[in-house]
């Protein structure tokens, strides 16, 4: 019955493409999470009235974040081709998509991290200082735990955006479901392949959203 409904779908290829999409998403989400928190923390800590208040550093990071957040992703991939070739050694395949995915998503997530940190009650930070906490204690034991629900819901949104980015990267040769839908589905006019690829991407997005919501509700004690 499956073969009648989807005559052009090769299930092995679908499986391989799904794995590629999951691989690209997983690695880029992890890297974005780390890099975004780092940048977001720096943005927050160097902003006015905070521990490392520094207008210059804050300005530099803010412009970096704003520039990379504004470049459309499909253009970013092309701009980063020399960089990708240098780092990964090739511009084809799932690994070649990673630099662009991470550089495209980390600044976006960094802003969310900064907003999450700004939501923390200033009084709590003051209380920690009054107890004699070091800056690293404040970061690890106050800022990150207190902002955790917002950090998790932020990475959920970013992960879903990244699934979309992997599909775009697929069009320019990165593999995955986007690549499959474009090459096998669109260019050969096999609508059933495009349909299956779309459904799989939707399923991945729903699963990410479900996990994100579940974790957020578990850790939010407010």
């Amino acid at each position, binding site marked *: 019955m499956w073969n009648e409904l989807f005559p052009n779908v090769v299930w092995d290829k679908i499986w391989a493409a799904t794995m590629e999409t999951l691989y690209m998403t997983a690695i880029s989400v992890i890297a974005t999470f780390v890099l975004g928190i780092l940048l977001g923390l720096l943005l927050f800590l160097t902003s006015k009235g905070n521990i490392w208040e520094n207008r210059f550093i804050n300005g530099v990071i803010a412009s970096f974040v704003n520039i990379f957040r504004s470049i459309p992703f499909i253009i970013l991939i092309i701009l980063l081709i020399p960089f990708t070739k240098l780092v990964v050694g090739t511009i084809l395949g799932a690994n070649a998509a990673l630099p662009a995915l991470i550089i495209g998503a980390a600044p976006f997530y960094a802003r969310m991290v900064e907003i999450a940190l700004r939501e923390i009650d200033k009084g709590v930070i003051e209380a920690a200082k009054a107890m*004699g906490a070091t800056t690293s204690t404040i970061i690890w034991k106050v800022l990150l735990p207190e902002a955790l629900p917002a950090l998790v819901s932020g990475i959920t949104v970013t992960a879903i955006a990244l699934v979309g980015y992997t599909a775009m990267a697929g069009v320019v040769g990165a593999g995955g479901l986007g690549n499959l839908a474009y090459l096998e589905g669109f260019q050969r006019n096999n609508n059933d392949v495009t349909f299956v690829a779309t459904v799989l991407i939707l399923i991945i997005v729903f699963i990410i959203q479900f996990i994100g919501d579940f974790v957020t509700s578990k850790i939010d004690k407010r």
Partner: protein
Amino acid sequence: MITLSNVTKVYKAASGNVTAVDHVNLHIEQGEIFGIIGYSGAGKSSLIRLLNGLEKPTSGEVIVDGKDMGKISGKQLRQARQQIGMIFQHFNLLWSRTVRENIAFPLEIAGVQKEERMKRVDELIQLVGLQGRENAYPSQLSGGQKQRVGIARALANNPKVLLCDEATSALDPQTTDSILDLLVDINKRLGLTIVLITHEMHVIRKICDRVAVMENGKIVEMGEVLHVFRKPEQPITKRFVQQVTEPEETKEAMLHLLERYPNGQVVQLTFVGEAAEQPLITQLIRQFDLYVNILQGKISQTHHGSYGVLFIHLDGANEEIERALAFIRQQEVEVEVLANVE
């Protein structure tokens, strides 16, 4: 324990400099409960933050337990802060931690081993009366319970000084009283020096040994609470004292009475300590040919004795009234004749 000499704190703002603390001199003894009262914007929050180095003085010296809080920084400052607990109006607990974990936080900062930490947390939970709520999160607690966690947390590292930043201002009257009782209990049991800032004279009356009144960054009046209650000098101090001695409607009622009794005198009597317990009115009626009409009265309990205010109306011959007033003055009772305002 705490000495401030000539301390000034100026904030630079776009609209010009703001002097929050203006040449303040202050000495607070070990084991004392010292209150600083003032309206919002008087500079009292800046003042209390100078004591643990959250703010640095623009000029002057802040010495707490022998350390110059304006000068030290880095590790020295952090270690000094571990000896100074602080509680806040909005509690400032970590919502992501349970009661137990919140109280353990300053111990983690001080590097106390886990086993000892747990032991100390249990002691503190006993001390502030939070048994059974150890594993609750702050969002599951009432305001009073949250402040108890705040107090336990502030006491975790056995500090020598406890700073209270409007600690009861967000609480209802009953809860306020129970938190104040707890503070007095801790002060007695641990010999802790407590500095508190507030805008409620009720708090000062109930637990403080001495009080300083702040206005526009300056300390305008300072002294033993009972003394300040008996003889407030500055207009602002009088207003604060009235907060607890005179109900709101007193003034209105007095005007009404002055109108209704054009004959005789309306007199305000102020009793302090033992005088408050003498049968003065009975003596007045027996010894003088007067009609004595009690209009209004109130006795307040301070940390060091009671303090009462009584409004009476005396009617009779003028000479007789004068003699009666002279008699009252001999009894260590303050007398103020209220003139007919209109």
